[in-house]
């Protein structure tokens, strides 16, 4: 029965000439230099080159464009080279299926809609810290003017662990093209309501991840968040997440607090924002499900960390984007030594030419409490077709 249903969908999707096929792709290249000054005044310099080629297709299954099939596949070539002291280069070839899903959008009366997706799709939680990755499964979104909901049931065991970074105890680096990720069953439930004059939103979200084996790990997260407009142009996002993680038969609770206040200026697309994130440490340590980082420049998981910073961005002319940020990092638990971890700054310049080519340059430094200073330089080029 399932096979017949699948066959019907495939025939419907690909056989009818009235339905349209769309396709395209993306080529991305990135070169990063990390220059580290070590406490003994020696230097440790690395060069990282990351290249990505993606192809995507979209096949609609109805004239209105409400029922669609999506697929996207990518190939990565990565090269890591330690320049000082000179070491042998390491190369990685990675293949991935980023997207493979059927999507059904069903408008319902009274401005309500239902969207059902089946297959591989990405999902980020409210905080974009706990989960920011792909899942294989079913994703259901319901929207109406009074509330919105999202429910998902998925599995992570078929994903590529070389592109999807699940926070696990053992992070074995395997030099393979495709390496299966840790198998977790995932369950997501989201409920949001609009509130007040500016239709701000109040949301609650539950995320559960279970390893389907005896004494398997269990990770559950419960988030309450509010976001919206305080006064015109001044926006806020705030959330509190409680986590309960059972790992190696030990149960541990944790807390993540996230807040962001942004002001949008009327000219040049200018924006200035203040943000803070606190992830508890020690006995009640927080741990995200996806390996997400505080900094874009260096490895900095949301574990026992308190980050506070400011960011400013500007679009002075069409296609040009400028950004500057600074973050001050402390340990999440005051008793952890040293409490002050360090400060980072970063500037970014992006220029988009004729909508299809984007060039980026970023320069930044992380000055930790110890004497070691990390300077990060990155050049990036993206072309879509």
């Amino acid at each position, binding site marked *: 029965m399932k096979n017949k249903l699948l066959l019907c969908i495939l025939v419907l999707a690909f056989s009818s000439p*009235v*339905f*349209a096929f*769309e396709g*395209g792709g993306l080529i991305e290249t990135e070169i990063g230099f990390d220059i580290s000054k070590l406490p003994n005044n020696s230097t440790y310099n690395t060069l990282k080159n990351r290249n990505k080629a993606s192809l995507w297709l979209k096949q*609609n299954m109805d*004239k*209105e*464009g*409400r029922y*669609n099939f999506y697929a996207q596949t990518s190939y990565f070539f990565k090269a890591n080279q330690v320049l000082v002291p000179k070491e042998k280069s390491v190369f990685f070839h990675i293949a991935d299926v980023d997207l493979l899903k059927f999507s059904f*959008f069903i408008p319902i009366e009274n401005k309500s809609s239902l969207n059902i997706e089946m297959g591989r799709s990405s999902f980020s939680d409210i905080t974009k810290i706990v989960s920011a990755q792909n899942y294989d499964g079913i994703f259901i979104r319901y929207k109406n003017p009074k509330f919105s909901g999202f429910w998902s049931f998925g599995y992570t065991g078929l994903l590529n662990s070389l592109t999807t970074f699940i926070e696990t105890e053992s992070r074995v680096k395997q030099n393979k093209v495709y390496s299966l990720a840790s198998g977790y069953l995932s369950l997501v439930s989201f409920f949001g309501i609009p509130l007040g004059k500016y239709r701000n939103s109040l949301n609650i979200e539950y995320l559960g991840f279970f390893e389907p084996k005896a004494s398997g790990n269990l990770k559950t997260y419960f988030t309450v968040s509010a976001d919206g407009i305080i006064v015109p142009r001044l926006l806020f996002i705030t959330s509190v997440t409680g986590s309960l993680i059972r790992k190696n038969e030990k149960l541990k609770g944790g807390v993540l607090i996230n807040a962001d206040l942004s002001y949008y200026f009327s000219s040049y697309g200018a924006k200035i924002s203040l943000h803070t994130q606190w992830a508890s440490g020690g006995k009640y340590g927080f741990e995200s499900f996806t390996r997400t980082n505080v900094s874009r420049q260096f490895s900095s998981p949301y574990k026992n960390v308190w980050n506070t910073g400011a960011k400013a961005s500007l679009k002075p002319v*069409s296609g040009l984007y400028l950004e500057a940020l600074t973050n001050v990092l402390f340990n999440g638990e005051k008793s952890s030594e040293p409490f002050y971890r360090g400060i980072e700054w970063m500037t970014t310049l992006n220029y988009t*030419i*004729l*909508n*299809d*080519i984007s060039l980026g340059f970023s320069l930044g430094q992380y000055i930790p409490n110890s004497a070691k200073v990390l300077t990060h330089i990155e050049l990036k080029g993206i072309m879509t*077709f």
Partner: protein
Amino acid sequence: MDKKIFVLPLFLFCAAFLTAQSAQKIDEILQSPVLTNGQACYLAGTAAGIFEDINSYSEALDSFKHLKGFKDADAGTSVRLDAFSHLILKASGIKGDLWYRAANNPYYAFRFLKMIGIIEQNAVPSSSISPRDALIIFTKLTGDKNEK
């Protein structure tokens, strides 16, 4: 509500481009359930000031026969959304993105208009288009051009 949404782009379109045109012709186009190749060329050509007072849709189509998507088109059949995208980019003199400039075809015209938000994300290139939606797209596009 639908009528209210429709009146504004129609008003802008008419006020901007069609002062010399017969209201009867426009009314005739608006009565159609879908926009035909001939009607699309008539609206685009008139708005662009390429021709004036052409009374036949087939004459209007002849003016755009050199464009991909219109070479073998019939004036009475419905226009595809990608061909319409190509037509209005040419008529409005908008050069488009890198790939539209290189390929100069309906597919990349459609892709460009989708990318800049003129056409809805779930739109289908082979779909037909209503005269009302055609005017909304044209008004958005010319509005964007004037803003720049």
